[in-house]
């Protein structure tokens, strides 16, 4: 078993911003896990992992010239229905100071637009973020846990987009 699985979100930034969607081939996700992940090369990547493995997400622009950063990764609340973010305080992270970014009560990404507009102080340090964590022991094997991947491309009203399609699944 690899100690770490890497998930890469490859984004056609110009295409996504032009069409205002991460679908239609503008987002392509791949991982290098040990098991048979499904949906490789699509936004609906389901990455197979083992408890204790580290998982790291990275965003990369296809043309390498345009900026793209991960703004948030949130696992969806299985009981709350589509599009509702799981609140991180429901679980205790093992790290000290275990707060989570972008999980404040206002939840801007769900307010349908304007998310991140004018939040310059936040987005200009997103490149310092390392999206890495350990697969917890409490995941039910064989069940995909979907997450919302929110990406920031440059700044502005149209700069933040998300998909709710990718998932992690414990083997």
């Amino acid at each position, binding site marked *: 078993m690899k100690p770490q699985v890497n998930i890469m979100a490859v984004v056609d930034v110009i295409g996504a911003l032009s069409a*205002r*969607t*991460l*679908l239609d081939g503008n987002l392509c996700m791949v991982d290098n896990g040990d098991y048979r992940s499904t949906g490789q090369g*699509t936004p609906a990547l*389901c990455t197979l992992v083992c408890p204790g493995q*580290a998982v790291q997400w990275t965003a990369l622009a296809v043309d*390498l*010239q345009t900026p793209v950063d*991960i703004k948030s*990764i949130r*696992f*969806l*609340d*299985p009981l709350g229905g*589509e*599009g509702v973010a799981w609140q*991180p305080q*429901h*679980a205790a*992270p*093992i*790290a*000290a*100071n275990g707060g*989570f*970014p972008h999980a404040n009560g206002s939840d801007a*990404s769900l307010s349908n*637009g*304007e*998310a991140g507009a004018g939040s*310059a102080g936040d987005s200009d340090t997103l*490149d*310092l*973020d*390392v*999206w*890495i*964590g*350990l*697969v*917890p022991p*409490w*995941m039910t094997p*064989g*069940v*995909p846990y*979907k997450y919302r991947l*929110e990406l920031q491309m*440059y700044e502005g*009203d*149209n*700069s*933040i*987009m*998300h*998909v709710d*399609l990718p*998932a*992690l699944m414990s083997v």
Partner: protein
Amino acid sequence: MPQQLAIIVLVDVGNAIADGTLDGNTYLFDNMKLHGSDGQGTGGLVTAINGAYWADGSQASEQVLNWLPYSLGSIPPTVPRGYQSDRARQTDREALAELDALAARPAAGADTAGRLDKIRKSVGTRIKTTRRTSGRLSNEKVLDVTGEVVGDLGTGSYSYPGPIITDIYGEAVDEKIMYPAEYGSPDMVTDGWYWSATVDTSRPGSYAYTMRIQLHKLVVQDGQALWHPVNLTCTSSLRITSEPKRNAFTKAGMGYLPVPMHAPPTEGYAGTDAVTESARSTG
């Protein structure tokens, strides 16, 4: 991942040649406006390079700089390179076709002279090949800014060749902050050659550098045209900062991923159907 950082050097070639300096005739841009670069679109660009390091102090990301020199008021860089040569051949073929037509149907004398003059203009002016100019600019024709060949150089409506960076040097290089070099590439936008550098972000600070840029002015000698090189310099600077990487989930050390404690239902949750709308832009 290495972020490719581009610095565009836009030169008002005509004015720079007339003034004998790039000062006031060069406009610099980079794609790091959000990183805090200053002076976009002016001659005083300060390029911000934000490095990052790991907890052990090692450099976490590699920053790569690319320089792209463009000419203001010339045929734009989006027109395929080799265009001058293509147009030279194309206009030759057109002129030969016209000469054929003229020979096949000899008309009245005055008319023939007029048509020959027209053909002479449409053939245009080919750049003389000398030992010094052989290669890139030789044996091409002088084109105007709309891509037509120039028959009468006196009007000055020709398009200047793009500026060429011939060296990058100065403090940032002497201090080993960046390692610039010219590279070959299949990239048509840059004529297959471009200047690139990797940057050492471990020593924050401001570092100046100088670009030596070669322009070409059209010189007519004994009725023959040639592009005469004009070497000028312009300066810019890098402002390097570096900050530590951080865990985005915990803001501290490694932790468990924030996966829900209760398992998702096995139906109606996985899969890609009926959820495509949720992937639309939030904006």
